[in-house]
């Protein structure tokens, strides 16, 4: 299995340049909220009926207009996501159109529809990468988690992509439904020779569940920490695990609790700085997990929307309490985490605080057990 997923230098360079010049280098295009799976922790999924009731999806022409406007402002990377983007009958109208604009495309998919004619079209003109979510290590787990027993089919589809030389990366969401399968999923990744990006942290699905901040169909903070460490224990050799544990310990010990700053930090990632997220119904957000700040490029034009988004993102401040925390360098909290956990960008995400401390403790304990063996 590929163990690293290092970004090409040119992408880092273009984002750095984009940050300096205020350019939208990357766009996330959430083409639909519909999906042929029905996963309990999904932050987007709506039924066909719900989509209709909420005004319907953007048309292919509208997506292509937004893509062209973004391309003209500098966008070179785009992620096509959903829902499941391949449920759109006009998917290839959008895909082919964006390719002709000179945009490097990657696709998020559950992998279940990547066969037959759809597969053939992708093999003739592949995206730069497929990010495929693997939800379990058996048909039974798939049925429990997604409502469809298609594990074997998905694996077969991934194998066909790999055989043709298409770049595939797996996304693994560790939840109460598939926790028991993570070793099998690791073995699958090794067999398929693909990288896995795993997370045991599930954002509260505030976009589909209203304002239910801090709740969701997910593991407890302590269970999520244990699951994350278990995944590390599976994928890392003894030496790699020891190094990871040492780094983690040093990052906490070298940054003891101190006085918090008067103001929290701003957004540290690319969201709203060199990247944007377009929802299926035409709203532009910094990140797909958030519900604000929101701007509408189809109403005000792309350039004005991008400018408004950048300004609103620059004003975001995360919790000031985090600035003095000993665990800040090993903590995965970001503006989207704070917002979905608390309803405020500057609200302290206690679920993450608990998960981080337990991750450090559990990593040290696992290291001690491995060294005893």
């Amino acid at each position: 299995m590929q163990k690293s997923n290092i970004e090409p230098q040119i992408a880092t360079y273009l984002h750095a340049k984009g940050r300096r010049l205020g350019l939208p280098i990357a766009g996330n295009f959430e083409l639909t909220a519909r999906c042929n799976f029905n996963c309990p922790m999904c932050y987007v999924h709506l039924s066909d009926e719900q989509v209709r009731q909420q005004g319907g999806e953007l048309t292919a022409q509208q997506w292509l207009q937004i893509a062209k406007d973004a391309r003209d402002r500098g966008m070179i990377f785009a992620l096509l996501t959903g829902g499941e983007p391949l449920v759109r009958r006009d998917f290839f109208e959008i895909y082919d159109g964006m390719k002709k604009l000179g945009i490097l495309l990657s696709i998020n998919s559950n992998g279940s529809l990547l066969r037959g004619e759809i597969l053939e079209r992708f093999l003739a003109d592949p995206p730069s990468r497929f990010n495929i979510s693997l939800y379990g290590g058996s048909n039974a787990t798939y049925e429990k988690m997604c409502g469809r027993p298609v594990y074997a089919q998905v694996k077969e589809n991934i194998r066909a992509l790999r055989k043709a030389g298409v770049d595939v990366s797996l996304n693994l969401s560790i939840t109460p439904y598939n926790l028991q399968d993570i070793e099998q999923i690791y073995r699958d990744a090794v067999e398929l020779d693909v990288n896995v990006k795993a997370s045991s942290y599930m954002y509260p699905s505030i976009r589909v569940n209203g304002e239910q901040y801090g709740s969701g169909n997910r593991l407890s903070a302590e269970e999520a920490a244990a699951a994350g460490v278990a995944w590390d224990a599976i994928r890392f050799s003894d030496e790699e695990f020891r190094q990871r544990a040492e780094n983690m310990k040093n990052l906490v010990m070298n940054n003891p609790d101190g006085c918090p700053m008067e103001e929290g930090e701003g957004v540290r990632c690319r969201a709203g700085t060199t990247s944007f997220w377009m929802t299926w119904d035409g709203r532009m957000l910094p990140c797909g997990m958030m519900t604000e700040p929101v701007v509408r490029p189809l109403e005000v034009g792309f350039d004005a929307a991008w400018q408004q988004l950048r300004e609103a993102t620059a004003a975001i401040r995360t919790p000031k309490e985090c600035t003095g925390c000993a665990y800040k360098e090993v903590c995965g909290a970001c503006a989207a985490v704070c917002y979905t956990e608390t309803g405020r960008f500057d609200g302290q995400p206690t679920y993450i605080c608990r998960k981080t401390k337990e991750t450090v403790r559990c990593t040290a304990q696992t290291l001690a057990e491995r060294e005893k063996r």
Partner: protein
Amino acid sequence: MKIRKELIRREIAGDVILVPVGGTVLENNGLFALNELGAFLWDRLESVEDEETLVQAVLAEYEVDEATARTDTAQFLQKLREMEIL
């Protein structure tokens, strides 16, 4: 000269980038960045018959001695051949 790969030329804030499409994605999955001279040569590749014409174009455009123009042009074309772009 014939470009054998499917590549779309983009300009992003002064950088010239080549984006692979079609079957080229399977062979060269990534972006190509051209420096100023690379972009100058790339834009003329398909309209010239031989390397000598490119060298003369470089000499006409840049204040550079002939030996440097020949070496730079040859290196660029060699790189494209190694990547089976040309």
